[in-house]
């Protein structure tokens, strides 16, 4: 890294917003280059001071009251506006009221009752789907957390090797299943290593791949017999998750690379699996 590049990335470095590898490269450069190091220190202290010294304009108490009462008015006014159109015919023009009653019950109430029944039927049918979606959201959260943790704590890999014949036996010994391990360097996804992780109350294999400067965690564990639809793509908090099931295994790839890159990764991985 030269001084120009370091200067360009300095703000991201100061804000702790660079990926681990780039951060390390900058750190290295700052150790080697007193000029940049000096510039970094001055810039850093100035930036800290800005945050503390610039006035923070708190909301005055009267604004708080004003907003709370306007919200209350809004709440009361909202339904009024909906019936507003019905109010118009109240004024002179005499025309038969379209909304007459059926056996003394106004139509609108029958409509409401029908809507409630209808909604109940729909809710009843959708509920299992929602619960499944909830479980999946929870799993996605766990996977993202695992991915983020692996990048944070210098614990990306337990066994660092680009050799699938080193990673696979290591994992096989630690786990009660034997996941497939492939180096995908030729497809642009070099294998970095493997790690044990813990997802959904069980130990799982995590294979770590690299895509340019980003990392992909591929979590693998045995699929249960009753599995819901495979092949899923979820995008959350800037992370992409791709899920598929192949043979006996569940695969979840998690990364901050683009979705298309992650799909490429999935294809590259699947290509290596023995056809069945």
């Amino acid at each position: 890294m030269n001084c120009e590049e370091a200067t360009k990335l300095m703000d991201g470095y100061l804000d702790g917003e660079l990926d681990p590898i780039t951060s390390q490269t900058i750190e290295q450069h700052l150790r080697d280059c007193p000029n940049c190091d000096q510039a970094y220190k001055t810039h850093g202290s100035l930036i800290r001071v800005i945050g503390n010294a610039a006035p923070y304009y708190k909301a005055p108490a009267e604004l708080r009251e004003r907003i709370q009462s306007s919200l209350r008015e809004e709440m009361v006014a909202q339904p009024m506006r909906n019936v507003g159109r019905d109010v118009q015919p109240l004024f002179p023009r005499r025309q038969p009221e379209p909304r007459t009653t059926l056996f003394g019950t106004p139509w609108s109430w029958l409509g409401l009752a029908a809507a409630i029944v209808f909604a109940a039927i729909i809710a009843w049918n959708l509920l299992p789907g929602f619960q499944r979606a909830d479980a999946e959201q929870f799993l996605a959260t766990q996977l993202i957390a695992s991915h983020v943790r692996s990048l944070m704590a210098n614990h990306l890999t337990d066994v660092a090797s680009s050799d699938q014949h080193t990673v696979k036996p290591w994992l096989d010994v630690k786990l009660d299943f034997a996941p497939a391990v492939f180096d995908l360097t030729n497809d642009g996804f070099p294998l970095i290593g493997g790690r044990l992780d813990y997802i959904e109350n069980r130990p799982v294999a995590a294979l770590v791949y690299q895509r340019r400067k980003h990392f992909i965690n591929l979590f693998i564990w045995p699929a249960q017999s009753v599995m819901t639809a495979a092949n899923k793509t979820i995008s959350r908090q800037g992370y992409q998750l791709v899920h598929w099931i192949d043979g006996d295994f569940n695969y979840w790839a998690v990364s901050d690379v683009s979705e298309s890159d992650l799909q490429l990764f999935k294809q590259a991985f699947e290509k290596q699996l023995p056809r069945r």
Partner: protein
Amino acid sequence: MAAPLKVDYAFNAEDLESSAKIVKFSILKKHQEPDAAQEHELASFEETMLPHMDAAHNLAKWLLRNEEDAQDVVQEAYLRAFKSFSGFHGSNGRAWLLTIVRNTSYTLLKKNRAVDLTTTFDEEIHTAGHEPVSPATILEHSENAELIKEAMDELPVEFREILTLRHQEGLSYKEIADIMQIPPGTVMSRLARARGKLKEYLAARISKDK
């Protein structure tokens, strides 16, 4: 309240001759009282969003540089947020509210003061010719809140915005990108330019005061 008065008037004007209309009246009357579901929604909205009022006000004030406008924008933003609250499923209430505050502020800026959106540039201060000021000198003066405020107020609106979001709200690049509706990659370079400009303006003020 305006609405019930209107109904009373209609009621009298109709001479009570149509029972159907009386039914309408009673339905209308029903809507006056917010029901439990509405109360519940308001309570949950307030619980999620009211804690972020300082952040909303601070951002609006930096963007608009005017207390009255800032308060109007915050109020308007809260109403907008309340109306679309049912569509909010995220967990980041502050970022969501700040996005609305930001958009509302820009709408006002565009409407009232088109000139504000173009880069403001004070020739008198920024023409070269003042003595160079060392970073150390800037640092010495940088705890002077008034000086920082003046220098920041001179920056173009998108620089004031990004400095506020980062330095005062401590938001991540991702959150800033979402709020400002710019690609995440742009956040770092814009922040760097904003800080550079601020440094420059501070230097200019310090050398002028000398």
